[in-house]
């Protein structure tokens, strides 16, 4: 069973009489452990698609099954639990809470989980270590560089060891060096830890780190291909 399966997915925003088709007849599936990039220019519907896949929004029509079940099969609490335990989100603008340090930011998903509080500290430290941010553990977001903020956000996304990680333009606000480092971490999550990754980007270069690229245009899939010549941030000469 694929982890993600969509069929004729459609999302329509209506404002007054005008209707905007953010997604139309989108059908594809993603297997467990895949690394898929969703590409397209702005306004192509890629963020809308990510929101639907992340159970943050509901499609207007069509079908979306996450692990065989759709949004409407779940109660509000179950949806929250799925977002908490099985999905991880990485945002372009990091979305770290100001005035609390990296450790506390990383712990945030745990307070909504069933994990006992005694384990929170160790789990958070482990996640922070895996993104190489242990030396910044007591720093507040305002004291971090862009790349460090995104690493903190990745630590937060993977603390609950989710099956799937949704990354929405994770390098969009970063310089190329930090961007590379973020991509290296994301690759590692996919290859070493076996997380399924859905990466949203508008840059071909970034997209080519993935195994497969789905291109969107005006809400429709115009191509869905395996990447022949993958880039790998991990194999390039790269110093921390």
């Amino acid at each position: 069973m694929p982890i993600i399966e969509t069929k004729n997915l459609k999302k329509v925003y209506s404002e007054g009489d005008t209707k905007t088709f953010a997604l139309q007849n989108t059908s594809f599936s993603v297997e467990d452990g895949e690394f898929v990039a969703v590409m397209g220019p702005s306004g192509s519907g890629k963020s809308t698609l990510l929101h639907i896949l992340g159970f943050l929004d509901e499609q207007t029509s069509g079908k979306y099954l996450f692990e065989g079940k759709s949004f409407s099969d779940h109660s509000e609490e179950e949806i929250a639990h799925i977002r908490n335990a099985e999905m991880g989100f990485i945002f372009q603008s990091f979305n770290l809470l100001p005035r609390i340090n990296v450790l506390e930011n990383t712990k945030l998903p745990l307070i909504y989980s069933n994990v006992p509080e005694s384990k929170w500290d160790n789990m958070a430290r482990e996640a922070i270590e895996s993104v190489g941010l242990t030396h910044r553990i007591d720093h507040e977001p305002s004291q971090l560089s862009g790349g460090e903020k995104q690493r903190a956000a990745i630590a937060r996304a993977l603390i609950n060891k989710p099956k799937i990680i949704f990354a929405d333009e994770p390098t969009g606000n970063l310089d190329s060096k930090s961007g590379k480092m973020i991509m290296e971490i994301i690759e590692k999550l996919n290859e070493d830890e076996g997380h399924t990754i859905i990466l949203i980007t508008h840059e071909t270069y970034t997209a080519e780190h993935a195994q497969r690229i789905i291109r969107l245009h005006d809400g429709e899939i115009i191509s869905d291909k395996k990447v022949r010549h993958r880039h790998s941030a991990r194999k390039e000469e790269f110093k921390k």
Partner: protein
Amino acid sequence: MNIRYSFKTAISSLKTNKVRSFLTILGIVIGVTATILIMSIGEGAEGLILNQIGGMGADIVVIRPGKEPSGPSDMADTLFADSLKPRDVEALKRKNNVPDLVDITPIVIVSGSASYKRETYRPTIFGSDAEFMGKMMNLHPEEGAFFDEDDIKSIANVALIGSKVREELFGEENPIGKNIKIKDKSFRITSYLPAHGQTTFFNPDEMILLPYTTARLRLAGINHYHEIVTRASSPEAVDRMIQDIKMTLREQHKLSPTDKDDFFVVSQQGLVDQVKTITSALTIFLSSVVAISLIVGGIGVMNIMLVSVTERTREIGLRKSLGATKKDILLQFLFESMSLTATGGVISIILGALLSYATAFILTNFANLDWQFSFPVSAVAMGLGVATSVGLIFGIYPARQAAEKSPIEALRYE
């Protein structure tokens, strides 16, 4: 989300906006402090008044002429009412009319000044039975003896004076056997009292006591009494005695069953009940004023919480994307508003205690009142309870607004 963590989150978010948090709870603090102060002062005042009434004696019943006063204008009527006649006193004295009555004296109040040689003084002049008055108020002459039944019967021009009267008129001179003048009539001093101090109803030090017959006939020139004071055989007999007194006097005054009493009785229990009615009415009135201030304070809290929810829209979106349920978000903001107002409650309890103590201190030391500082436990419970409920009630709407936000719109919010 567990309670301890919710609490921690709430406190840390309130701390980031210290000044705003403080200003927000100021309204609550003022309201709750005022309530605590009112409760404490109310209790203190009631204690003070009840203490003084207690000094009257549980077995004493005072009969006054006129209708029972229900307002200040009725009080004036009482002063001019003349329904208590000398023959009423004789009727009440008869054992078969009022079997529980053991002591009785009419009271005549005379206004005027007293003079001796060139000294003049304006005392409180009473006519009554000196022995009963002495017994009731625990007065003993420093020199001489109380005038007796014979003096009353013979309408003797004799007087008993208080220490202040003696000091003002005689100085160091011994007043016994001397004559003072009241309204151009001479009265011989037969005894005087040592210094006593203020009591609830009057100050014995400033008193001149005459036989009630003398005061009524020679000074006031009236055919009625201003008051009749009676004593029952025991405090338990008071209620029965009051019934007998009422029956006797109604009969004496030939009142038909439909007529209202043209007199009324005052007993310690009656006064206690009255004081309690008055203080509880005052407390209710003041509490309703305070309730309004709490509503105003609560609206302030609601306003700030709404601002806070809007400011933190992205945070709400993020928390939802990380797995927060609507309930989690609702509780987070409710906890925040309740922590805010509960903090106000704690501050109010401390402030309220300090202010009540200061009030008690000032009243005891500068107003010479026997004021007991009392800080009821109920005030502490009330302070915390009311403050927290205000946070709950006025926090629900903003918290619901937060909980209902759609995660993607919240995440997109700039």
